[in-house]
């Protein structure tokens, strides 16, 4: 399993893996917002956490279509399905998700504080948003794995995955953003939405890979 993790991470980081694409897309989205919204610094600071979350959500959907597609094209996926008796397929998916998250999504979380400066956010808001992204983005990857597994047989399933996955990620977005606001806007609580966000991630860490494993097992042809 560790072998699978290092292999996927290596593939994600090497040329053609697309780990950097997400960060650049994230940067592009955030850099565009002030041009659209206008130079009102207070407004930017107020919508900052939400914009960071939406940008990170969209950027993390970008690389999902390659999660299983690349392995399917070269036949590796068949062998992983066959290895089900030794390595439970749901666990294989979980490890692939973890490698995908570290390779493609963690850079977004690391870039988020820097991009928060673009939005004129105060340090506490930046910290809270980065923390909620750190806790919440794995949930997006787990939902995305289920979507990617369903769409893996389709030759150009990338857009379909985003359309399938986006509605399901809305609870994660809601609690992520409300926890980020809770840290700065005084009457709103931080801890409650943050704990629900953590619970969502843990819940989806089980449901997502299991669903993806089932879809992969029955989707092979």
């Amino acid at each position, binding site marked *: *399993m*560790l*072998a*699978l993790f*290092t*292999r996927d991470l*290596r*593939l994600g980081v*090497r*040329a*053609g*893996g697309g780990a950097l694409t997400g960060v650049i897309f994230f940067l592009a989205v955030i850099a565009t917002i002030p041009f659209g919204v206008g130079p009102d610094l207070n407004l930017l600071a107020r919508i900052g956490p939400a914009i960071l979350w939406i940008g990170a959500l969209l950027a993390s959907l970008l690389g999902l279509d390659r999660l299983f597609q*690349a392995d399917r*094209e*070269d*036949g*590796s996926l*068949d*062998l*992983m*399905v*066959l*290895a*089900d*008796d*030794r*390595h439970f397929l749901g666990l294989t998916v979980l490890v692939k998700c973890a490698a995908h998250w570290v390779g493609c999504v963690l850079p977004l979380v690391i870039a988020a504080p820097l991009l928060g400066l673009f939005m004129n956010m105060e340090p506490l808001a930046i910290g809270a948003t980065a923390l909620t992204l750190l806790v919440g983005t794995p949930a997006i990857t787990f939902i995305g794995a289920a979507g990617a597994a369903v769409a893996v047989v389709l030759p150009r399933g990338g857009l379909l995955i985003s359309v399938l996955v986006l509605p399901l990620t809305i609870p994660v977005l809601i609690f992520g953003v409300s926890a980020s606001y809770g840290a700065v806007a005084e009457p709103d609580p931080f801890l409650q939405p943050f704990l629900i966000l953590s619970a969502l991630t843990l819940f989806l860490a089980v449901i997502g890979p299991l669903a993806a494993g089932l879809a992969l097992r029955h989707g*092979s*042809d």
Partner: protein
Amino acid sequence: MRLIAENLGGERGGEIVFSGVGFELHAGQALIVTGANGSGKSTLLRIVAGLLPAAEGSVRLADAGEAYPSPASACHYLGHQNAMKTALTVTENLDFWQRFTGEPRLPIAEALNVVGLGGIGHLPYGYLSTGQKRRISIAKLLINHRPIWLLDEPTAGLDKASEERFAALMTAHCAASGIVVAATHLPLGIEAQELRMGESAHG
């Protein structure tokens, strides 16, 4: 160990490709599956491996012991694709499969020597020629132990010398009480039973 297929039927896209196929292989035996294009050779192998559900009949493993609960767990499946990443080096690819598959047998450098490609382990897999890529995936059969080899057109792209070397490997595998099931158009040069697809079903 015995690999038994009873009255197997396969379908693709809702259409029956073959039906009523059966065989029983004991340890040390080989089966060569032949037949025209579209007669269901690959489908048969994928059903035996457990990648596709059988439309009818069943595949099972007898006298295999607890280590191999299902045919899939006892199989090396070599399909049309080589299951290697072009961005990784040959050694990295093989090292991953050796660790992931379990039951390691030959060290990687030795397996590469056996297929006649010693000393190219540092090259990215994508730089190799078609035949060399195929030989690397043959080396993948050697680095982990599996009693059953399911081979789909294993010699596609191989030159004469490599074909002979591969025939020797298959013979050695059978001699070590393994089982080989190979779908092919080309003669493989090994002692084997033959199963002709497309005759029992439609002819």
